[in-house]
């Protein structure tokens, strides 16, 4: 298990972050292209706060809109991937510290993961 050094862990974390960010960018870009090709000359008004419709607030609704290839749905799905990227990093770190037999940091990382899970799923009943 000596292969599990901090350096190797850092390299994998770097690649993980890169992949998540890239995937999210592709999704957001695709959504933006769909949206702009249809409504580029529309005049939006963001001075007044209305809040997003329920379909773009929850995981299931966003996934449905994205699968239907709606521009806003695709963007929102890409934003979800973006939010999930640092969460995935923390989740990976749990296993990496486990492989390093560093139990202190397994616990530390699990606590961070629990707070993130509460934020993401606690607010989405």
């Amino acid at each position, binding site marked *: 298990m000596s292969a599990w050094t*901090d*350096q190797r862990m*850092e*390299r994998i*974390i*770097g690649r993980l*972050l*890169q992949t*998540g*960010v890239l995937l*999210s*960018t592709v999704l*957001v870009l695709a*959504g*933006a292209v769909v*949206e*702009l090709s249809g*409504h*580029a*000359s*529309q*005049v*939006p008004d*963001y*001075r*007044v*706060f209305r*809040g*997003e419709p329920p379909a*773009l*607030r*929850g995981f299931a609704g966003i996934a449905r809109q994205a699968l239907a290839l709606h521009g*806003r749905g695709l*963007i*929102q799905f*890409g*934003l979800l991937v*973006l*939010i*999930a*990227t*640092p*969460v995935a*990093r*923390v989740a990976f*770190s749990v296993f990496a510290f486990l492989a390093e037999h560093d139990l*202190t*940091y397994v616990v*530390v*990382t699990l*606590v*961070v993961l629990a*707070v*993130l899970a*509460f*934020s*993401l*799923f606690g*607010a*989405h009943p």
Partner: protein
Amino acid sequence: MTLAAMFLLVWLGSLLAGFLGALTGLGGGVVVVPLLALLLRVDLRYAIGASLLSVIATSSGAAAAYVRDGMSNVRVGMFLEIATTLGALGGAAIAAHVATGAVAVIFGLVLLGAATLSVRRTAGPPGTDGPADPISRALRLDGSYPGSRGPVHYRVRHVPAGFGLMAVAGGLSGLLGIGSGALKVIAMDDVMRLPFKASSTTSNFMIGVTAAASAGVYLARGYLDPLIAAPVVLGALPGALLGARVLPRLRSRVLRLVFAAVIVTLALEMIYQGATGRL
């Protein structure tokens, strides 16, 4: 203004915001929010939601480069993330009950604080000698980063005080949609005595996790608008990657002064417009 024109303007502004954010470790949010709210008159709640996402993007994008360079301290980052994520949850909860004008004033005051703190020189050089801090030893926080003449080793001190400051930084991040990079850097730089290169990159590393903790709450509340967030994220990303490339070649003192001047201007405008009910 048409959607296409708005998209282009927001994209260009976010490109610059991401660049400056990555260079300083402050995060792009401190520029994105005033840009959207003051210049493009976007409602502050949408601006904060989009900014929060740009903060995740810039942090993750630049951190990908930093971690491979071996400059950030993964253990310090991971341990302090307990404080920042808990703080972020609290901040996001408070944000729902505060008027946007008040949020704008708080935003401006925090920016002024960040500018002041980032200009002030640190009390002394980071310690490489002396006995190890007992908490720091137990948590194996001491680290090193690659310097021009081999690895530079350093000791980490005053862990409880740094932890407390991090909780405050997380709270401000959740309330204002910023990375709170300045406060994170101060906590690690001045209090815990990490060298600036290590503290700014570790701060950047933590910012994404902190922002993700409040992003879930913002999504559920409907503060994340796809058409505002898209150009912000798409602009902040390449800007941040560019900033991460330039960082090792820049002198940190000059960096802090230039960015501080921009921040003070934005901060005063946020306070004025927030206090007079224009935001």
